[in-house]
C-alpha cells in the first residue's frame, strides 16, 4: 500500500477530487447548466470508450472498429436489468459489462486470426450485426427505442471513469501489458519470446469489450432512451477518431482525444451536419502534420513530481 503514496499519485488524487468536487458542487447548487452537465458525463463515457478501444487498437495493435457494438450490448443488458427486472444500477452496469466481455471473447476468438484490414471489416460487420439484432427484438423496443430512467449521476460517471482508466493503465504497465505491446511491435518475435499471442489478443479484446459494455450501461442509464441507431458504425468511428487523434498506444492521448472530440461535438451541436466534415478535416490535418496522433505512443507524465528519477 505504501507504494501508492508518492507525490505524483497524491497530486493526481487531489486533481481528481478537485474536478469532481467542482462539478458536484455546481450540480448541487444548480449553477451548472444541464447542457454542460450532459457533456461532462459524455466525456466520462467517451474516455472509457476511447481508452478501452486503445487497449485493443493502440496497445495490442489489432485494428478493431466495432466498439459501438459492445457499447450496445452493455447498454441493452444493463437497461434490461434496471428497467425490466428492477435490479439495482450497479448490478445492471456490471452485468452489461460482463455480457459484453463474453461477446468480445466469443467474437475475438475466431476474428483475431485475421490481420489488418480483414479484422477491421469483420469487427465493423459484427458491430452492425449486434445493432441489427437489437433492432429486431421487440422486448427492448426495436427501432423506436427503449426508455430507461435516468439514474446515473455525475458521481457514478466520474468515478467509474477513473476506475476504468486505472484498471486499463495498471494492466498495460505490467508483464501482461508488455505482452500485448510486443504483439503490436512484432508478432513473430513476440511468439519467439514465449508469448501466447492469440491469448493476449483475445484478452485485450475481452477487456476492451468489458469497458465498452460498462460505458454503454452508463450511457443507457443516463440518456432516458436508447435506440439501435445510436450504436451504428458512426459511433464506432467517433471513438476511433478519439483514439487516433490522441495517439494509438497512449492512454492519456485517448483521454485528451475524448475530451477534445466531445467538446467539438458540443460546440457544433447546432450544426450537427458539419460535425463529420470537421472531424474528417481534423483527421486529414492530423495525418499530414502529426501522423502518430497528439501523443504518439507516449504518455503525458507527471513523473517529475516523483523527484529526479521516474
Amino acid at each position, binding site marked *: 500500500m505504501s*507504494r*501508492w503514496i508518492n507525490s505524483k499519485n497524491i497530486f493526481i488524487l487531489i486533481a481528481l477530487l478537485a474536478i469532481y468536487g467542482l462539478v458536484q458542487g455546481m450540480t448541487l447548487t444548480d449553477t451548472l447548466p444541464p447542457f454542460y452537465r450532459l457533456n461532462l458525463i459524455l466525456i466520462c463515457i467517451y474516455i472509457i470508450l476511447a481508452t478501452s478501444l486503445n487497449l485493443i487498437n493502440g496497445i495490442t495493435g489489432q485494428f478493431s472498429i466495432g466498439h459501438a457494438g459492445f457499447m450496445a450490448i452493455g447498454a441493452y443488458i444493463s437497461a434490461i436489468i434496471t428497467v425490466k427486472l428492477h435490479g439495482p444500477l450497479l448490478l445492471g452496469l456490471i452485468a452489461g459489462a460482463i455480457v459484453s466481455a463474453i461477446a468480445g471473447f466469443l467474437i475475438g476468438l475466431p476474428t483475431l486470426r485475421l490481420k489488418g484490414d480483414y479484422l477491421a471489416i469483420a469487427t465493423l460487420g459484427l458491430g452492425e450485426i449486434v445493432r441489427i439484432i437489437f433492432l429486431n427484438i421487440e422486448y427492448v423496443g426495436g427501432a423506436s427505442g427503449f426508455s430507461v430512467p435516468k439514474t446515473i449521476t455525475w458521481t457514478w460517471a466520474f468515478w467509474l471513469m477513473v476506475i476504468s482508466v486505472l*484498471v486499463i493503465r*495498471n*494492466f498495460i*504497465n*505490467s*508483464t*501482461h*501489458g*508488455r*505482452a500485448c*505491446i*510486443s504483439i503490436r*511491435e*512484432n508478432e*513473430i*518475435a*513476440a*511468439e*519467439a*519470446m*514465449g*508469448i*501466447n*499471442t492469440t491469448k493476449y489478443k483475445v*484478452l485485450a479484446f475481452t477487456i476492451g469489450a468489458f469497458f465498452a459494455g460498462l460505458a454503454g450501461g452508463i450511457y443507457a442509464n443516463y440518456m432516458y432512451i436508447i435506440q439501435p441507431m445510436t450504436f451504428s458504425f458512426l459511433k464506432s468511428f467517433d471513438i476511433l477518431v478519439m483514439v487516433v487523434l490522441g495517439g494509438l498506444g497512449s492512454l492519456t492521448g485517448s483521454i485528451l482525444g475524448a475530451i477534445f472530440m466531445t467538446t467539438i461535438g458540443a460546440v457544433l451541436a447546432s450544426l450537427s451536419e458539419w460535425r463529420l466534415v470537421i472531424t474528417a478535416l481534423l483527421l486529414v490535418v492530423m495525418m499530414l502534420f502529426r501522423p502518430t496522433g497528439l501523443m504518439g*505512443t507516449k504518455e503525458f507524465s507527471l513523473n517529475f513530481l516523483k523527484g529526479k528519477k521516474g
Partner: protein
Amino acid sequence: MTLLKVENLSKSFGGLKAVSNLNMEISQGELIGLIGPNGAGKTTAFNLLTGVYEPSEGKIIFQDKNVAGLKPYQVTQKGMARTFQNIRLFADLTVIDNVKIAYHQNTTYSSFGAILRLPSYYRGEQEIEEKAMQLLKIFKLEDKAQEVAKNLPYGEQRRLEIARALATQPKLLLLDEPAAGMNPQETHDLMELIRWIRKEFELTILLIEHDMSLVMGVCERIYVLDYGTIIAHGTPAEIKSNPKVIEAYLGEEVV
C-alpha cells in the same frame, strides 16, 4: 545426454524441398555449427525447430518430447530460444523493455495481481527489472537500457537480440547468423561472448554461420547443409577436408 534429436525432418514449399530428411543429434552443452551455401535451407531448419513452420514430415525430439507441430511460443516455453537472421527486435521499444518482454513466461503474477497492484506485482516487476539489468550488463548494454532499440548500432542490435533470447531462460539457443554485418573485431568479441555465455548459462548452442572460418574456430561439431540435405557432419578438421563440402562451396574460399 541427448538434448535434441531431429529425425527425417522435411519441409516443402510447393515443389521445392527446402529441407529434406534432416537428421541431427545434439548433446547437452555442445556448441554446434550449421553451415551451407545460400538457400541451403538453414533458416528453414530453424523455423521448423521453433514451430514457425509445421514440418511436412519428421520428428523433433527435444528433452525427450516431440515438439514438432507445437506453436512457436510453446517451443520457447519448452526451453528453445532463437535469434533471427534479419533482426527482429521490438524496434520502437527501449532496450530494457525488449529484454523484460522475454521474461514474461517466467513471471508469476496474474493480470488481477497487476490490476489490483498486489504485492506479487511489485515483487515480480522488481525481479524482472533486476534480472534484465544483469543481462544487459553481461552484454555491455546497460548504459543503453533506456535507448530505443532501433537507434542502436547494428552490432549492438544483434547482441540485444541474443540477450533477449537468453531472458527466456532456454536450454538450447539457436543463433541465425549472429555475426552477419559485423566487422572482424565485433565478430571476434561476439564469438568470445558466445563461448562465455554457454558456460555461464549452461547452454547448448546451435549456430548458423555463413562464414566457414568463423564456425571452424568456435564449434566442436559441424553439420553441412546443401539443397536441404545434410551432406556432411563432423569435427571442423573433418569438414575442412571433406570433398563434398569443398564441392558445395566451390568457388567460395574454404578457409
